[in-house]
């Protein structure tokens, strides 16, 4: 119980730092830390496969891509012009409303039961693989097509047009 609360606190703390950091590179680094805490959450839930995938795909690939792009943009200005204070306050209030809505709706559920691990082996690779390839084979194949199209699209978008002579 203590572990959970500690890790949860760290997640929230780093998330807030993500959105309030002035330097975008700092934002990305804080995001990496946030995802690391998420990985710990997955391990706590014994979702081993997801934890490893989260670590490798998200932190290793996606956020590194973010870093590359940010370097490419060649932001010289450390301090980007921020939005006006009025907008910031309106945004915070908007987000707060959202949070309150969700929490208020949860209250009606009452105290819930503890998360009892009925099947502690649920998150293992072997079991997850069985479910994935038996019931969800079609979405699996289609997602590979999706990744193909994303790849093609990204290449098309990013290549410079050959200059006509």
């Amino acid at each position: 119980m203590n572990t959970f609360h500690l890790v949860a606190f760290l997640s929230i703390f780093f998330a807030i730092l993500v959105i309030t950091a002035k330097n975008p590179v700092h934002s990305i680094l804080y995001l990496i830390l946030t995802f690391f805490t998420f990985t710990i959450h997955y391990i706590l839930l014994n979702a081993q496969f997801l934890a490893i995938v989260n670590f490798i795909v998200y932190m290793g690939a996606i956020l590194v891509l973010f870093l590359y792009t940010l370097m490419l943009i060649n932001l010289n200005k450390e301090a980007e012009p921020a939005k006006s204070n009025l907008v910031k306050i309106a945004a915070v209030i908007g987000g707060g409303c959202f949070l309150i809505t969700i929490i208020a709706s949860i209250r009606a559920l009452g105290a819930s039961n503890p998360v009892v691990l009925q099947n502690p082996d649920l998150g293992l690779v072997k079991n997850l693989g069985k479910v994935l390839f038996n019931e969800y084979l079609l979405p699996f194949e289609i997602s590979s097509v999706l990744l193909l199209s994303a790849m093609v699209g990204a290449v098309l978008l990013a290549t410079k047009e050959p200059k006509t002579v």
Partner: protein
Amino acid sequence: MENVTNAIQTIPLNEYILLSAIIFSIGVIGVLIRRNAIVIFMSVELMLNAVNLLLTAFSVYHGDASGQVFVFFIMALAAAEVAIGLAIIVMIYRNTNSIDINVLNRLKW
């Protein structure tokens, strides 16, 4: 491993929902506050991850593996989306030399 998993035997589901909701709304606030397009994108990733955590928690709670499979698909999708999105941002930078979203206001009346 059993020690670890035993540690979460007594955590109520509500707390997972609460955690997820808080991180989701932090992501929403980030989208609304920042002007840098890349940082906005990152906030969107934060939101997706919060949802992933919640799905996993539910899957463990109900003993249904579908939740974790769904998380797997969400991750694949997020990767594809990031690839395309960043390519678009690079194009915009090439054309307008800025990624400040207040500058990208051509679609007005």
